């Protein structure tokens, strides 16, 4: 009786400290908005999640079985692609955009740097079929999965599917990717009043609220709008961003505001990965003389001029957005198929 009581207390203590449920499945952090993902259409199960994880790490999804989702989305870098400014694909082909980190996708109203993709399940078709990424066809990948006895058994178990179809593949991947919740950084624990910022972090936080928060709005650290941040068009790719989707000239060279969660680890930065250091990024925002048109009004209004000291403080604050329980969550790592 006594022992149960102690265990119970310990359990509660651990949970409130870690704030991460043990199984890796999606959860909604306290005080966060309602997620947008349609869970009714794809009810999460541990087996579905683990099937999605197996697929995420399996190069079978690419045309020549050399590239998996994890090739460009590595967990230790918040599922972004380190060391490569833009994504890589089969036959060493190179894409035009920086593979973004994957986290808190259940709250995303749209995906990709240009916001062209409106649902998480459908997103996966893009890297699967893009010639510069996995270069496969849906027909091809479904054929391979349907010939594979391991996957046949798993999909039967999770979806009751005799024959693996597009929707089964996409829902399985969705069960894994929607579960990648990161909400347990130092910043979060400070907000939960479980720890406190250092003086420098606190100064950085004040600067953040003043200069950055308008677009990189908590708790997701993005307002999901499309902005031009003054880095200017990419000379190599001439990627006009949001305008490719809307066809509006006013949207030329606008890109989606990215989240700043785990930003310390999700280098390189910007839609084309042109900056490799977070210091460089802050330096860009801190010196309006560097800005190249187009520049969104939010940025123009700030007309930033931050001292080197301010920049260091801001950097310290941004590092409090690193969530090690996410980056090293064993539930998200590769597991050999069982």
């Amino acid at each position, binding site marked *: 009786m006594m022992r149960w009581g102690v265990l119970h207390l310990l359990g509660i203590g651990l949970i409130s400290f870690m704030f991460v449920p043990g199984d890796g499945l999606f959860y909604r952090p306290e005080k966060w908005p309602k997620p947008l993902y*349609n869970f009714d*259409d794809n009810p999460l199960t541990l087996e579905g999640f683990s099937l999605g994880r197996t697929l995420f790490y399996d190069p079978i999804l690419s045309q020549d079985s050399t590239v998996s989702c994890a090739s460009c989305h590595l967990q230790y870098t918040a599922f972004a692609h380190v060391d490569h400014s833009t994504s890589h694909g089969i036959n060493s082909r190179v894409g035009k955009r920086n593979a973004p980190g994957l986290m808190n996708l259940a709250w995303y109203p749209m995906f*990709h740097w240009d916001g*062209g*993709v*409106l*649902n998480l*399940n*459908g997103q996966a*078709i*893009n890297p699967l*079929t893009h010639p510069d990424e996995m270069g496969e066809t*849906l*027909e091809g990948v*479904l054929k391979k999965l349907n010939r594979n006895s391991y996957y046949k058994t798993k999909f039967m178990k999770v979806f009751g599917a005799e024959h693996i*179809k*597009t*929707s089964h593949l*996409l829902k399985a991947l969705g069960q894994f990717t929607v579960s990648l919740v990161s909400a347990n950084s130092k910043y979060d624990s400070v907000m939960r009043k479980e720890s406190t910022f250092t003086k420098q972090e606190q100064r950085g936080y004040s600067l953040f609220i003043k200069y950055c928060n308008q677009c990189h709005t908590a708790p997701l650290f993005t307002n999901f709008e499309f902005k031009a941040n003054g880095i200017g068009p990419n000379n190599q790719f001439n990627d006009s961003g949001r305008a*490719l*989707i*809307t*066809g509006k000239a006013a949207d030329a060279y606008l890109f989606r505001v990215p989240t700043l969660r785990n930003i310390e680890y999700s280098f390189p930065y910007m839609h084309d990965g042109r900056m490799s250091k977070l210091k460089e990024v802050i330096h860009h925002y801190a010196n309006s003389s560097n800005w190249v048109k187009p520049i969104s009004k939010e940025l123009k209004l700030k007309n930033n001029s931050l001292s080197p000291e301010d920049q260091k403080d801001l950097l310290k604050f941004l590092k409090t957005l690193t969530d090690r329980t996410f980056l090293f969550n064993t539930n998200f790592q590769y597991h050999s198929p069982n």
Partner: protein
Amino acid sequence: MLRFLFLFFIIPNLGFGQHTVKLMVGSAPFQLHTNYLMNGTDSIRLDQFKFYVGNQRGDFHLVDASDTTTFSLPFTDRVLIIGMDSLANTSGKLEGAFDPLLGMYWAWNTGYIQLKMTGNSYSGGITRPFDYHIGGYRVPFSTSKSFNILTANQFVTANLDSLFSSLPIQSTPNIMLPGPAAQQIFNSFVSTFE
């Protein structure tokens, strides 16, 4: 007597039943891989012709000219929609008629191709391939139109002559994006329905 009464009750109901799409060129059923003379000298040949028809409840069906079984619509509604509305485009359903495997899904710019026509035109000894992927649901370039079916009519008939002769094959042989050009072709298509 009994049999007569039985028929009496059944026959009117057939009129409210499922509809069948009839695609015509001139007075003959339209066929893929067939040359059609347009204006005395030019001709056109289609290799693919597919489009979506649905109802107001969000059910959609893909009519594919290469498979006549798809001509029977699985709806009994009196209002049909040619081309998906924005709700259907963004529903995130990826099953049945919504399966991206059908080659009608734009993965990078979420939405469906509502009318797919590919083929060749022949004019003055020159062969011009064309590829029309017609879709879009963002205002003002929507490619969706609802219309009432005459309940007595079992067939939903489209006379494609005017669509084929209106295609801008010389100037714009490829359309793969939503926009004014796509909408114009869609409007020509919708107007072929009686």
